């Protein structure tokens, strides 16, 4: 275990996750909201890897690889949608894109 308590690693993961939640809640720029989502995914990946290192099993890193793929797909779609929002509304304000069509 390299002498690092696993609880402290989980505390860091929790701190990063809470910071990501706070970012989603306080920011109104869609680009920053997407970045905060990335922070949360990264924090959950950190928790998986720390827990996997606790029992010296590769499962934690396998889940991290899956989270990485999910983050890549989410970023590709999210950024395409952000380009659409900017094209339609001329701004990145999330509150402006509040109506539905149809």
């Amino acid at each position, binding site marked *: 275990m390299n002498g*690092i308590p696993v609880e402290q690693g989980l505390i860091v993961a929790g701190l*990063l996750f809470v910071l*990501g939640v706070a970012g989603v809640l306080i920011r109104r720029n869609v680009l920053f909201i997407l970045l905060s989502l*990335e922070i949360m995914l990264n924090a959950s990946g950190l928790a998986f890897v720390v827990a996997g290192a606790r029992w*010296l099993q590769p499962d934690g*890193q396998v889940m991290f690889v899956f989270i990485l793929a999910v983050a890549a797909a989410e*970023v590709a*779609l999210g950024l395409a949608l952000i*380009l659409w929002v900017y094209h339609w509304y001329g*701004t990145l304000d999330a509150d402006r894109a509040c109506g539905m069509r149809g």
Partner: protein
Amino acid sequence: MLYAFYIASAVAVISTLGVITGRHAVHALLYFIISLLAVAMIFLLFGAHFAAALEVIIYAGAIMVLFVFVMMMLNPGPRSVRKERHWLSPGTWVCPAVLALILTAELIFLLASGTVGFHDGTAVTPREVGMALFGPYLLGVELVSILLLAGLVGAYHLAWRLGVSRADGAGEGRQS
């Protein structure tokens, strides 16, 4: 070893605070890259070398490049040159550079002292991860590949319609 973990964690939390409080998107991106590198450092300390390498290559490399490209498309024109000059002022890059220097010093110290645990049996090697990925987790790998394909098709669909709509006349469809 424990202190290295504390330093990397502090760097990660401070740079993440910089992300959610940043005014410019590019500043936030700089801080986020530092945060990812700090998390990769924590992975290294926990003996997850493969995850650390993936974090640097895919997260800080590939995914952040996507963000940079989109930011480039959102800020066209001569206005961006002035902004670029403003972004390169020392106030912008000193804080991320100091955090990155702290991480670099920590990495060099750990590698020089030989305490990262490459051979002492406390690491989960890439070989084990690969055996698990293509052994019991094979179905998950296939599902993730389908998810990536869906993301690719979806992003292509959205970008294609955006290109058609722009060719018809930029700004005509703007509802604001």
